[in-house]
């Protein structure tokens, strides 16, 4: 077994005594893209938030690069090298695109490095360069998602976690966003992806997990999962 960059062992999360995640284990290897799919309410987002220390994990272990990060404060988790692009994007709407991106590099202090990263993001998303001074409130959904992802890249993360990046986007934009993920994968980024767009995301992923009511019900390569009936059932109930 290769050295996992992220290893989650049997974690449990409760929201005021209601179990949301009940013994979830998962591993991500370096330069790998792992996708977690599951219906609404299955605990996908909670799982990512648990890694980020945004919800309390009361049992289990979370190891990142061999270090225990369970229940660290969110900002400390970020400093270990994980970035999280949240489902709601959480852009700082009153600020401009560039200001948002620079905030993504908050944990870095090296100015040259920050500029390099900025240039990298701009080269990655040329459209953002055009709109660098525009307030993010005025961006379209797809552009906003680009800012969110770009912001996640600004701190040179060792692991990028994307929470439903295609959510609420028009189909054309969904493809665009997923293409971005594909490109990132090619750049050698380690990605943990949570998606509703089951098919496409599983295609991108090296491996995938299917989550149902807080448990992993299926695990395998993307291809295997696409063929599985479980996936379809999980989504349409038939």
């Amino acid at each position, binding site marked *: 077994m290769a050295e996992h960059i992220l290893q989650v062992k049997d974690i449990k999360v409760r*929201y005021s*005594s*209601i179990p*949301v995640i009940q013994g979830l284990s998962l591993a991500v290897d370096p330069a790998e893209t792992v996708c977690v799919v599951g*219906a*609404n*309410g299955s605990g996908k987002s909670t799982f990512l938030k648990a890694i980020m220390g945004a919800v309390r994990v009361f049992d289990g272990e979370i190891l990142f690069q061999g270090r225990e990060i369970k229940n660290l404060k969110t900002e400390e988790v970020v400093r270990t090298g994980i970035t999280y692009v949240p489902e709601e994007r959480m852009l700082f709407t009153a600020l401009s695109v560039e200001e948002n991106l620079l905030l993504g590099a908050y944990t870095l202090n090296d100015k040259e490095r920050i500029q390099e990263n900025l240039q990298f993001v701009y080269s990655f998303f040329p459209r953002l360069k055009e709109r660098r001074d525009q307030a993010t409130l005025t961006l379209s959904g797809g552009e906003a998602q680009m800012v969110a992802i770009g912001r996640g890249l600004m701190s040179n993360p060792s692991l990028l976690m994307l929470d*439903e990046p295609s*959510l*609420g986007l*028009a*189909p054309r934009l*969904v493809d665009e966003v997923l293409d971005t993920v594909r490109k990132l994968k090619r750049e050698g980024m380690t990605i943990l992806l949570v998606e*509703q*767009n*089951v*098919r*496409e995301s599983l*295609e991108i992923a090296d491996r995938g997990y299917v989550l149902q*009511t807080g448990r992993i019900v299926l695990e395998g390569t993307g291809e295997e999962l696409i063929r599985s009936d479980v996936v*379809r059932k999980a*989504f*349409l*109930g*038939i």
Partner: protein
Amino acid sequence: MGYCGEGAPEKAKLMALLEVHNLTKYFGGLKANEDISFSIKKEELVGLIGPNGAGKTTLFNCIAGLYPVSSGKIIFSGHDITALKDYEVARLGLARTFQVYVASGDMTVVENIMVGCFMRTRSRSQAKTRAEQIMKDFKLHDLSDYILSELPVASQKQVAIAAAVGTDPKMLLLDEVAAGLNPSEIEDIMATIQHIHYNMEITVMLIEHVMELVMKISDRVIVLDSGQKIADGNPETIARDPNVVKAYLGERYVHEHAGELT
């Protein structure tokens, strides 16, 4: 596609209880609902599904009077309720529950249900009798004196439905009552909904992500995607509708499985 309401032919002769005509709702520049029309007949049980962000809850909120609509018309049991406030809508007999409802107060289960019952009566004893009756129906009487916020979510949702039922509605809008529940709790809530529908003869419209539930109990399903109505029909046809599958599983899935879809 044009399945409009054919899923329940035996009820077709009944008049429409709720009619939504060309409802459109903007939030600033964002179009949350666009030109949505449908009607629901008395004693129907209609599911409303769609991917996240499709505008389902917004639609509910518009119908229930929580948001003013940008354009369109809503008619409920002969009244134009488009411009009515939420409590006025409720008094006309259109009750609803909320997607995220975390009880925070110090009211007990029976008190919560009594609030609903108080809509139709001033008398405390009548309200209490009615609430106790509902609790019995919903098998909640053991929990009667517990503080609601201290109960598990499943019970809270049951109580929320019970309180809405306490207002003696003609129609009930249920917003994701099964979200976050485990399978056995989903079974319970399904039984509750069916009880409301068949025994109490209340028309029900529900937003739901748990497909087992929607597909099983709905007479008819309406599907929204990106604020638009993309399908309307009985559960079996809906599940095979390419537009629906596309909305859920993505375009490529549709192409590859074209044979299985109608």
